[in-house]
């Protein structure tokens, strides 16, 4: 486990921003942290990044209780992010990298490597305020990973990025992940979660309401819906042993019972004159799971 959060509580005055949250991030995963605005994601991340300390509970990074050396192993790109506008790109990166514990020499080498990689070596002397928003985001990203963190925490990393830069950063995140860096990815954009994450946690009202690996959760939340497309319409009088929830032209959506399997459905179709063109289980999107789970916790609360 790269990160282990155990029964963490954080209160501000009388407000419980994080309420007994536990979770574990396996090494080498892309871990999605989801939740509506104000759910306590940022409060939790701030504790992981040692910006604040938990009132109760413990957080372990790579097996060690969080300590003053921990920030050097973490790269954090907050949602509220920015750079010193009047500072030159090179100086700024040098400063931020040194604050993360690199020596001047190490920092310079790392900056050279990344500026080369993004083909922006001529930016060293440029002031940040002279760069476009997208360019600034690139610098911000470089600043976050210069010190080769073990754990990278990205809070809404793609807001304000155009599609080209989004893809560029996505590719870099994938490469970093392949090179062994674990990533926590906080967002409310569900399609990004499905695209990038292996594990997720869903936080609502300061509590961990859903947690696990993506495939397991999807299975857990599936409703046994199957979509079948045929090359002809089923005869009007056909005895369909399964309820049809949706029918459009040649495409049928069936609701199966818990005991029934996809094989039972296929077996039925084998006896029909119309041939099966497409057969697919409908898994819930994370958006649906998200809304369902939030609604559930709201009513139980």
């Amino acid at each position, binding site marked *: 486990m790269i990160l282990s959060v155990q029964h963490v509580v954080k209160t501000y*005055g009388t407000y419980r921003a994080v309420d007994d949250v536990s979770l574990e991030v396996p090494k080498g995963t892309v871990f999605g942290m989801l939740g509506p605005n104000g759910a306590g994601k940022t409060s939790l991340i701030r504790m992981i990044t040692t910006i*604040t300390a938990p*009132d109760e509970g413990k957080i372990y990074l790579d097996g060690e209780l969080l300590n003053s050396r921990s920030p050097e192993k973490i790269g954090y790109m*907050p949602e509220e992010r920015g*750079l*010193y506008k009047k500072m030159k790109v090179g100086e700024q990166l040098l400063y931020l990298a040194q*604050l993360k514990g690199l020596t001047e020499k190490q920092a310079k080498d790392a900056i050279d490597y990344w500026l080369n990689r993004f083909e922006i070596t001529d930016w060293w002397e440029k002031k940040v305020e002279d760069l476009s928003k997208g360019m600034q985001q690139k610098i911000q990203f470089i600043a976050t990973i210069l010190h080769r963190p073990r754990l990278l925490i990205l809070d809404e990393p793609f807001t304000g990025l155009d599609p080209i830069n989004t893809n560029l950063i996505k590719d870099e995140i994938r490469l970093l992940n392949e090179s062994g860096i674990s990533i926590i990815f906080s967002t409310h954009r569900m399609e990004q979660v499905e695209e990038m994450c292996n594990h997720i946690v869903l936080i609502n009202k300061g509590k961990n309401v859903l947690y696990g690996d993506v495939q397991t959760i999807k299975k857990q939340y599936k409703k046994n819906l199957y979509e079948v497309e045929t090359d002809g319409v089923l005869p009007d009088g056909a005895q369909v042993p399964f309820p049809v929830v949706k029918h459009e032209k040649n495409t049928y959506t069936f609701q199966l019972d818990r005991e029934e399997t996809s094989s039972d459905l296929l077996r039925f179709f084998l006896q029909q004159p119309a041939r099966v063109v497409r057969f697919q289980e409908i898994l819930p999107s994370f958006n649906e799971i998200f809304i369902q789970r939030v609604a559930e916790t709201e009513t139980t609360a």
Partner: protein
Amino acid sequence: MSKLSLIIKREYLTRVRKKSFIIGTLLAPVGLLVYMLVIVGLSAYQGGDEVRVAILDEAGMINQIPDERGVRFIPAANKNLDQLKQEVMERKIDGVLRVPPLANFKQTDHTVYYYSEDKLAPEKSELIERRLATKIRDFKMDSLRLDVEQLKLLDSEVSIDPESLTGEDKDDQSKYTVGVGLAIGGIMTFLLFFMVLMYGQMVMRSVMEEKTNRIVEVIMSSVRPFDLMMGKIVGAGLVGLTQVVAWVVLSGAVSFLVPMIFGLDSPPPGAMESAGQADPEMVQDMITRIMSELSKQNWLLITTSFIIFFLGGYFIYASMFAAVGSAMGDDSGEGQALTLPATLPLILAFYIVSMAGWRNPDSGLMVFASIFPLFSPIAMPFRMAFNPPWYEVALSIVLVLATAVLFVWLAGRIYRVGILMYGKKVTFREIGKWLFYKG
């Protein structure tokens, strides 16, 4: 390099390399020089064209008055008022001064009449009045047959010389002691007030800038909030010290170089006499005595106390400004009221010193102000040139340093919460709550 020193280095270098800092540091002594030249120029200014004034002395009290500072006195014997008025109209002279006779010797106020098409400038009118008064006085003395030498003996100059009760006379005081003390105290007070206010506000702006830039959360994931705040306070404080040192060196260089460049090693001989009534010997004497007073001061003590009180005062106020800056953030307009607790005591202290301090540096109010830690950084250095009791100084130093530590700690607690608080209007009540947040 430790993270704190990295922060201090950045804060210091970005400020010192700014054009505004370099220009301000270089231009201030030049500005001072220009200011001094303007003052000298203004005082030497004669007040317009020469005025030719004919004196119609009806009682024969006034003989010749020498021409002076743009006024030419023309005796008008054998002419009557009408003839003289004619001359004014023909522009041969500018005005006629008619001096009527005195009713008797007991008359102490006397009106003279001036006929002219132009108004007399106040400065010239005053000069004429003074010269006529002297002439009338001479006339009275002459008429009453008074001995001028004996009259001079009537005037005595009295000065109080403070003596110590123990009889130790190591620092013999004179009226110059007080004057020099006030000057030293005044300069220190002004410098401290100015520096604490200016650099304290610099810390505030810098904190707000990081908050509005949104870089602060990035930095906070690398360093502790307290280190970031301290780095800012120390960095800006060092910029302030750099500026003062630069000013001292530059002012020294300017005051040394300028006379060499313009070749004025001393004021021209005539200037001194016409500028005032003082004769050169007295001026020389005054300068030597001021110099001796200056050399008698305990400079080591004054400089040390200046540094101690600067550090104490700067840390107290800069930490307040840092806390306020962290709470204000995005909109500087709405949060203006939050700066009051930081600026008000500072201004009040300066006000107390400039009102009460000048009159009596050892008054009860000043003693209080020089011990109360929010005022003492401004008030105590003012008293240092007047040998305040050592226990008051010691108490004041202990209090100011303890308060500085306390305020830095309190500010740290406010700062760590405020700096991460976005888009929320903050009240004093709320800030009070932050003090008790854990972690």
